[in-house]
């Protein structure tokens, strides 16, 4: 099959942007979902704001940023591209139990001892998950968009969008419903384990069981806008969520002031590495950990001092 093969929309007959691996292809002219393969999803959309509003949001972000507003006149916006990304969203009921352990260090007299503490628990609840429905895909700001989308309650039916006015490419869904169920189950198992481990402060599990039942799932088309800007000849990126105009991720230059602060931080870590272990050494050998921590902080800060960008991320 070559690019000469043309697929047409089942509703309006317009040429479809059909690509290999496509399961669902939304017509960019009338918004009809054209299916390739068995099984169906419900498909919703988060309508995008206009390109001019996205550009205004970018400048608004730059003017309000404490660092970038000083150099705002020297910024040149050179590329603005938007497209709808299919994101698989699902509600999964999870039931299970776990027994975990934590290694605790305790001070007894002048020495420290370690012992293993065990905790156990069970869960029976629902989680909502979001995963991009494209294969092996990476894009600047995409993880942040997926993160935003999972908590969105106000998705719209495809018919609510004036597709002829929007004119934004819609990336095709590449995940089949059968695969979607497996992906959601896998993600639910992993998410629960990670969540329990973090909330209970565990070092590991003796036993963890999670029975995941996918109750509901759908595809949400979310608008991602990728921007490239220039500052003093250098190229930087920004990503903006098209439905609420929030900046998802932006790379900014590192200014001299930042570099000096990072270097001072690194130097202070070196001093702390000498002073803190000595102050605590009369009590135990425990401060060895402090030396490693100070070394890691010092190395991190000095590498930041000679880095080229600072990344600011939506949280």
């Amino acid at each position, binding site marked *: 099959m070559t690019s000469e093969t043309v697929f047409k929309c089942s509703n309006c007959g317009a040429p479809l942007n059909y*690509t290999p691996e496509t399961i669902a292809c939304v017509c960019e002219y009338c918004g009809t979902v054209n299916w390739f393969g068995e099984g169906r999803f419900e498909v919703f959309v988060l309508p995008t704001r206009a390109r001019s509003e996205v550009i205004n949001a970018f400048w608004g972000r730059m003017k309000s940023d404490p660092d970038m507003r000083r150099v705002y006149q020297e910024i040149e916006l050179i590329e603005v591209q938007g497209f709808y990304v299919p994101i698989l969203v699902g509600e999964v009921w999870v039931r299970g139990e776990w027994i975990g352990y934590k290694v605790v260090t305790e001070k007894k007299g002048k020495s420290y001892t370690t012992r293993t503490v065990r905790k156990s628990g069970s869960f029976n609840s629902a989680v909502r998950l979001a995963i991009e429905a494209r294969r092996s895909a990476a894009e600047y700001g995409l993880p942040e968009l997926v993160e935003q989308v999972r908590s969105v309650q106000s998705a719209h039916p495809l018919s609510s969008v004036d597709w002829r006015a929007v004119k934004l490419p819609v990336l095709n869904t590449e995940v089949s419903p059968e695969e979607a169920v497996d992906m959601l189950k896998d993600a639910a198992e992993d998410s629960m384990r990670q969540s329990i481990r973090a909330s209970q402060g565990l070092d590991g599990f003796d036993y963890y069981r*999670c029975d995941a039942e996918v109750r509901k799932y759908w595809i949400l088309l979310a608008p991602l806008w990728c921007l490239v800007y220039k500052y003093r000849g250098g190229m930087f990126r920004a990503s903006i969520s098209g439905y609420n105009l929030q900046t998802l991720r932006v790379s900014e230059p590192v200014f001299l002031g930042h570099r000096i602060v990072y270097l001072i931080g690194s130097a202070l870590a070196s001093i702390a590495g000498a002073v803190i272990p000595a102050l605590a050494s009369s009590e135990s050998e425990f401060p060895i950990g402090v030396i490693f921590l100070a070394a890691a902080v*010092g190395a991190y800060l000095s590498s930041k001092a000679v880095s080229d960008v600072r990344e600011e991320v939506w949280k």
Partner: protein
Amino acid sequence: MEVGFKQVTCPSCNALLKAPHAASVIVCPYCGYTFEVRSGRRLAYYMFPTYVDSPAAWRIVMQFIVRRYGVPEDFMVEANPRFSELHLVPYYVFRCRASSHCVRSGRGASYLETADYSVPAARTGRWIDSHLDGFSFSVRGRSFFDPRQAQRGRFHMPTVRYEEAHRAAHRFIEERALSEARESCGGAARLGSVEVDFVGLAHYPFWLMEYVYRGGVYRALLDASGGKVLYVEYPLRAGARAMMLAASAAIIGLGIASGLAVSATGSPLGLIGGVTTSVAAALPLLAKALASKSRGAETISRGGARYRWVKGG
């Protein structure tokens, strides 16, 4: 016929093709028909179009380098393109699914692991090969075979056998599933069902580039579909090197001085801590200052599952 190549007839359009002797799968550069040499079996195929042409590739690489720390001020004037070559590299793409089980103290549990696995199906024989493993595709731009795209650059035929790639995908998902079981359960872990489905063979375009700056040759690699900078080498100005060496010396000096001051109070840990921490803190600066060429890459992270509590029970 060139040494190391053989002539093959495309089963679909009957075109005479020149393919390396080592080719395991052939993609007809005229019609896109993709088939295994040994069995003649047809394979699914797609490609990523080259959206970034050669001038745009140079512009992106130069603009990326200029933002790096310590680049000479005359870089844009003195750096001159020397060579650029578009490589279309084939990848085998698999969809994998595996389950694993574990029993601990009479209690059992099962785990499911799903993942995509893509592996280069050929080696270009150039320095870029080490950068092509574990590469994540651009979220945009899948297309069917397009002869105009295929003829834009060096179109590499797969030389890695399909079975070999399939086995690698098996090993990959098996290891992931077992690792999940080991992470979840202290009991004996065993593998359950394993499914590896072939999604297709995909060609992905990369720009291999070299430029000259004041007699030195530097290399760059660019994702020609997504426009991401995957690897660059660039020069450092003498002033930046001196600054980093001075900052390293200052950090190490401060660490030693603090250590000596503390050790004077009777604690040897002060000197050990000061020296260890300050050397570690200065290491990134020293490594960059002493390297003959600086290196960099753009970091674009992949997505992944995100979750949120809906309601608890």
